[in-house]
């Protein structure tokens, strides 16, 4: 099977609409960044807390916001997880002094607002293994004398494992469903009914980052990325020519800027995992560009009479099947991750899906035209210096064997 047979598209001739599209996207993205005062950083980079809470019933977002807002200074963001009775609550943390109390502030407020204590009964949905074991040890011994401590621990472990497995995912709806768990007799279920109740919510995850750590992580991530780009530039300059490296890095930079801009437009947060996705995207895009540049380098010595435009066009056409196939396949993988990868990977996968599209087209419509432009500019400067002009300077063809 073949998608493209001996194509001869004039990519460079059609570059303008794409360059304009890129400029528009960049301007809109950067505009959004400027208006909103920089990217919307997640707590990894600005400090704060993030709590993932699952409820039995659809939670009232306003109620959460108001209850927490009364206790915790700064903005409270409540984000609903699509398809679930689950919310992700973010709070600000501006002062290092709040670090110690931040956790209790969130947990206690949730408890006092949504909890429904039932006398001495234990909420099985927020119980730890030790708490549940302590709660039922005596009563279980009362109904089943043969149960040893080891049996009890095993029993408790099974109950909590059942509670935490999908589709319950940490939240039991009623205690009767536990009768299906191995080792749980009807008597034990009765004990559980007397000693515990199914609370209205459970806390599935909690993150806390101090504001100073956030700042450090932020500068570290940005520095590492910039240095990585510089490293690539140097390597490509060494293997090809400086302008090739420059063109490739500009194209990759363009992809990152647009992706970050889209994140800002859609009000999505930049977290540490999104940074990992951006790095992945840098890798993909750079890869694409190098494959095309490599072909240009290979074609140049054999096509001295052709204009550079033609050489570049031919090279893009020759590698077109490969570009489309590779990008298509990686796009499929990223798409699968976005659709099925779950809530934690969502931001990561989204950055990849968006990034691969830009990464692919930037190699063709951004990197190659910039290369030509830089070449032309250098030629002009050389002519301006009254040096004898060569039509096309052959590229170094150092072969690695």
């Amino acid at each position: 099977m073949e998608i493209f047979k001996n194509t001869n598209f004039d990519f460079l001739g059609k570059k303008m609409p794409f360059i304009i599209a890129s400029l528009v996207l960049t301007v809109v993205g950067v505009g959004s960044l400027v208006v909103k005062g920089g990217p919307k950083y997640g707590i990894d980079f600005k400090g704060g807390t993030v709590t993932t809470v699952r409820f039995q019933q659809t939670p009232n977002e306003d109620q959460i916001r108001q209850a927490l807002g009364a206790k915790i200074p700064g903005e409270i963001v409540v984000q609903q997880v699509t398809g679930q009775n689950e919310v992700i609550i973010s709070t600000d943390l501006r002062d290092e002094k709040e670090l110690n109390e931040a956790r209790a502030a969130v947990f206690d407020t949730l408890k006092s607002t949504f909890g429904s204590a039932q006398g001495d009964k234990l909420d099985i949905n927020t119980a730890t293994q030790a708490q549940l074991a302590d709660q039922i040890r005596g009563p279980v011994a009362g109904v089943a004398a043969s149960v040893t401590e080891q049996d009890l621990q095993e029993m408790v472990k099974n109950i909590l494992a059942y509670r935490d497995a999908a589709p319950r995912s940490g939240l039991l709806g009623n205690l009767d469903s536990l009768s299906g768990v191995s080792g749980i007799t009807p008597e034990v279920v009765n004990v559980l009914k007397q000693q515990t109740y199914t609370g209205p919510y459970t806390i599935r995850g909690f993150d806390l980052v101090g504001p100073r750590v956030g700042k450090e992580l932020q500068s570290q991530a940005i520095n590492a990325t910039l240095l990585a780009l510089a490293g690539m530039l140097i390597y490509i300059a060494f293997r090809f020519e400086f302008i090739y490296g420059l063109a490739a890095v500009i194209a990759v930079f363009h992809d990152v800027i647009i992706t970050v801009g889209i994140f800002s437009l859609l009000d999505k947060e930049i977290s540490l995992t999104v940074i990992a996705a951006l790095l992945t995207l840098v890798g993909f895009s750079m890869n694409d560009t190098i494959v095309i540049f490599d072909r240009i380098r290979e074609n140049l010595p054999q096509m001295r009479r052709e204009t550079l435009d033609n050489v570049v066009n031919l090279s893009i056409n020759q590698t077109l099947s490969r570009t489309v196939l590779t990008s298509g396949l990686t796009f499929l993988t990223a798409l699968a991750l976005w659709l099925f990868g779950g809530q934690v990977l969502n931001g990561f996968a989204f950055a990849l899906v968006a990034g691969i599209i830009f990464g692919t087209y930037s190699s063709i419509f951004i990197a190659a035209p910039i290369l030509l432009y830089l070449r032309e500019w250098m030629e002009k400067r050389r002519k301006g210096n009254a040096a004898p002009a060569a039509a096309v300077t052959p590229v170094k063809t150092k072969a690695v064997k």
Partner: protein
Amino acid sequence: MDKNLKTKAIVIVATILICIYGIIGLPKSKAELDRNVAESIKLGLDLRGGSQLVLQVQVQDAFKADADQNIERLKDEMQKAAIAYASIDRNDPATIEEADTIEINIKGIPVDKTSAFREILTQKFSTWQMANVGSDAYRLTMNNTESLAMRRDTVTRSMRTIEQRINGLGLAEATVQQRGNGETNPEILVQMPGVDDPARVKAILQAAAMLEIVEVKDGPFPSEEALRAKSGGILPLGTRPIQQAARLGDQGESWYLANRTAVVTGRDLRNARPSQDQFGKWETSFVLSPDAGRRFGRYTEANVGNKLAVLLDGKARSVAVINSKIEDSGVITGAPSQQEASDLALVLTSGSLPAGVVYLEERTVGPSLGADSIRDGLIAGAVGVSAVILVMLVYYKKAGINAVLALILNAVILIAALAYLGAVLTLPGIAGIILTIGMAVDSNVLIFERIREELKQGKAVMAAIDAGFGKAWLTIIDTHVTTIVSCAFLFIFGTTAVKGFAITLVIGLLANVFTAVFVSRTIFDWELRGKQQPTTLSI
């Protein structure tokens, strides 16, 4: 040629075997297989659930405590040498950065005692540097090597204490590591897979747990003012005011005047455990080391009728009259529950922290969230990989099988390498694996497209394969080295998460050079072996 091919095949099979052994070991049963796989593919906390804490050691606390000790010692020495003084005090560095600025200020040394005073300092306080500030005032500052050692030592001791507390909690898989270097960046990273009560662990790790038993001179008083008023505003030498820890049902505060120096401290403990008094109330009882026990016995024998206070972190937990000689044990009352009594026993046996700790970061992934992440990740991975395999087979026919084999081997080598290195698979690591798979597919596509081009130009099958691999090799080297160069920077300058990404990617790419170029080529040669002049190639 044939012999050459055989050697290549052996190399490949050997690699596969080593990798599979690295992942599954030599299992004898299904259960053992599962266990080995779980052991070799270690999942990070973000995937399997658990808690990660970053603690910052407030080293300035240790500097202040050290200065306080030295001030006491200096006062003793000066008393012995009969040197009078107006005041001795220290400054109060508030942050970690300011810790080194600790200084002790001595004022009002009589002129005729100057040389005696200097003598004491040079002989007995050699870790401090003295400067003369004014005619009768001196300032002591800590010298540089000493303050560096102090920083390091404080972090190491805090870490040891935290390790002991973690072990005491029975968190078998937990790890405690130092982050950055102890001199400038006093941070400790605690990772606790599977822990289900991080709030309790946090409280235990943060407890200063400084135990002292001191002699009570006077009291109780209803307030600190009343206490001070009794002795005319100035406390007698060597004493301090102590507040009784608040208890349920208490009416107002109560204060005692106690000795500054303790009879026994937490360091003298041999053991502590939770126990119940005759009314069933929880308390923590402790046993002193033999040496401290003898000391305590002598002291209590001589002080029958006097009062003692048990202090925890500077507050009196209980005050009692000495009825008879006490040998080597005592209790701390006032625990609201069994858990709190045993938690206190745990922090007492692990020793006190040399300085306070603050939590800079906490990341807790509940067990249900971790389980969901793994399941979703596996589904997404399976869908993605199936799609890739399907497209490769449809697009490249028989050669597609070749590519798929190389791809699978690539993944197996990557996972085996991670297992051998003991690396932990985290979310960013998965990002690295995805990029690896993408680039692995790309290598095969590059090669196959080249072979197709060569075939179209009319080259014979073997020559086309040769040329295809040869030309694509240059491109593969460039793309791979570029990425590895960038990974090197990410590894050196990146955060932990970014490092995980970089390591996975570099291993994946190195494995890819082997699978896409060497293995894939060998499979082509193997398929075409024996044929003199193959005329068709399924690609």
